């Protein structure tokens, strides 16, 4: 286990303590399918119960969504644009409030968090966006350090923590570059590093590979996988179904704001290390591409 993983595991037990009895065991999804019951109620990190989100003008962002994510799980939210993936992400960082239903993270009902306390809550949730959302006037090091600075970490603490994270994300040689000097994949690595800098127990990634080519996407997925294996619960929203299929993790499929599928893929149980995952993803991508070359483009 790498030093980063050790820190992450250690921190997991101290941050975001679950409130006793606050979480009820989820039994069904919005579509009425059975979901794997949580082994222990304290095990549930994210829970949505009957959550709807209506935007103005009668647009439905999400309709009676119910699901739970256990600790250390890696879950993919898939579906076309406008299906409600981003709505879920924005609900989870309390950028939006649900019109109906309850969103709980680590047992805390998010609607009970006062506006003033939102920043403190967000420090426990790492977020990665499709458009990276880096601070343009700061170097790679400063971007990642900012996530620690907001928590009031001292310069010494930052100096001891950051090298590990930058090493983990493969950014050690780019410390002093500004975002515009980096490739898309590198920028997304910085975003992941920043999201993971304070070792949050929950990491959300909204279309993290949306702007990246397949090879770079594999790199980012490997990175998220590694973070997940280090003990962080990871939720990834994406419309890249092939990538999701190859990752062989739990998939929640959304369509027009409704959950239409929530299942773990057959090979879910098999543990791989990060390199094995990367090799397999590359091999399968190559196979698919080769097949496409023979059969012509899909559809």
């Amino acid at each position, binding site marked *: 286990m790498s030093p980063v993983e050790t820190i992450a595991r250690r921190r997991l037990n101290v941050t975001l303590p679950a409130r006793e009895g606050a979480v009820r065991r989820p039994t069904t999804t919005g579509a009425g399918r059975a979901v794997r019951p949580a082994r222990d109620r304290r095990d549930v990190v994210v829970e949505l119960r009957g959550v709807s989100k209506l935007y103005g003008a009668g647009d439905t962002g999400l309709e009676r969504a119910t699901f739970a994510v256990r600790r250390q799980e890696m879950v993919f939210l898939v579906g076309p644009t406008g299906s409600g993936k981003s709505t879920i992400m924005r609900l989870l960082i309390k950028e939006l409030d649900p019109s109906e239903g309850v969103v709980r993270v680590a047992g805390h009902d998010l609607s009970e968090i006062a506006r003033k306390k939102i920043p*403190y809550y967000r*420090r426990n949730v790492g977020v990665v966006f499709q458009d990276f*959302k880096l601070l343009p*006037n700061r170097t790679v090091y400063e971007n990642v350090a900012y996530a620690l600075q907001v928590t009031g970490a001292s310069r010494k603490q930052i100096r001891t923590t950051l090298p590990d994270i930058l090493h983990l994300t493969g950014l050690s040689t780019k410390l002093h570059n500004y975002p515009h000097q980096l490739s898309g994949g590198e920028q997304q690595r910085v975003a992941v590093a920043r999201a993971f800098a304070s070792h949050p127990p929950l990491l959300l990634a909204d279309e993290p590979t949306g702007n990246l080519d397949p090879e770079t996407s594999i790199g980012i997925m490997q990175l998220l996988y590694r973070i997940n294996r280090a003990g962080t619960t990871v939720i990834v929203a994406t419309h890249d179904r092939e990538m999701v299929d190859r990752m062989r993790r739990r998939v929640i499929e959304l369509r027009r704001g409704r959950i239409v599928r929530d299942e773990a893929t057959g090979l879910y149980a098999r543990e791989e290390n990060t390199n094995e995952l990367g090799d397999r993803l590359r091999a399968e991508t190559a196979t698919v591409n080769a097949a496409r070359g023979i059969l012509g483009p899909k559809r």
Partner: protein
Amino acid sequence: MKPGFFLKESLRSMRRNAVPSVAAFASVLVTTLVLGVFIPVVQATNGAADDVRGRVLVDVDLNTTATPAEVARVHAELVRAPHVKSVRFVSKQTGYEQERKLNPQAFALIGYNPLPDIFRVTPSNPGDSALVKAELDQSSPRGTRLVTDPAIAAVQNSQAETNQILSATRTIKLTMALLAALLIFASVLLISNTIRLSLFSRRREVEVMKLVGATDWFIRWPFVLEGLFLGALGGGAAIGLLALAKVTLVDPLANTVKLISQPDMIAFPLLIAILMGCAVAVSAAGSGLSLRRFLRV
């Protein structure tokens, strides 16, 4: 709170956003400069207007036969009367000498002193001169005069001239007040617009900071400090220019031009303090407040 960190952050952001920073600096400089010139001008104009208004007098002419006892009685009555600020006695003799100096030939021709004893009454408010006149010298419905004291021969307040003075000075004062209000309004608009633009170009940055878990004040402090610095720099530069103008242009002229040496004009150090305070406060508060809109993430 970590002042060192915020200080460094604000310095960095000024360096990295040079164009908006220079724009903010320049707008503070220009508005402070304009205000710094305009405040003394308004003051001088108002002072001059008040000076003119202060010359509105009511003359109370006594009978030429008035005895010293009657003079004393009328003086007491005038001092007691409402709307009277001060009373000055010009005796027959003094008046004669003054007038003779102005027009020696005419008085030589007359050969004797035709002037009565006069009280020059300054009304407590220039607009009250008519009231003072009415108080001392009322007309009956039939047009006969009802003088309050038999020793008073006539009360003159030179109605036409007084009205002219009053309306002219009122117009000047109103125009100045209007100009001052407009100028202050324009300054506030200019500064707030500059701040808004510079913040707008950085709204994404603020959004990202919020999403990473920064508290409102953690984001706001560097902006407030930045506003403080730019306000101080702009205000300081403007005051430097004003001081230069004062030393090189105004001070040498002060002896020859009446307006500039108005006694009730604002003192330079006070003017500096007010301008500096306004420049710093407006830009710091402006930065902090304008940010609020972008903090709702």
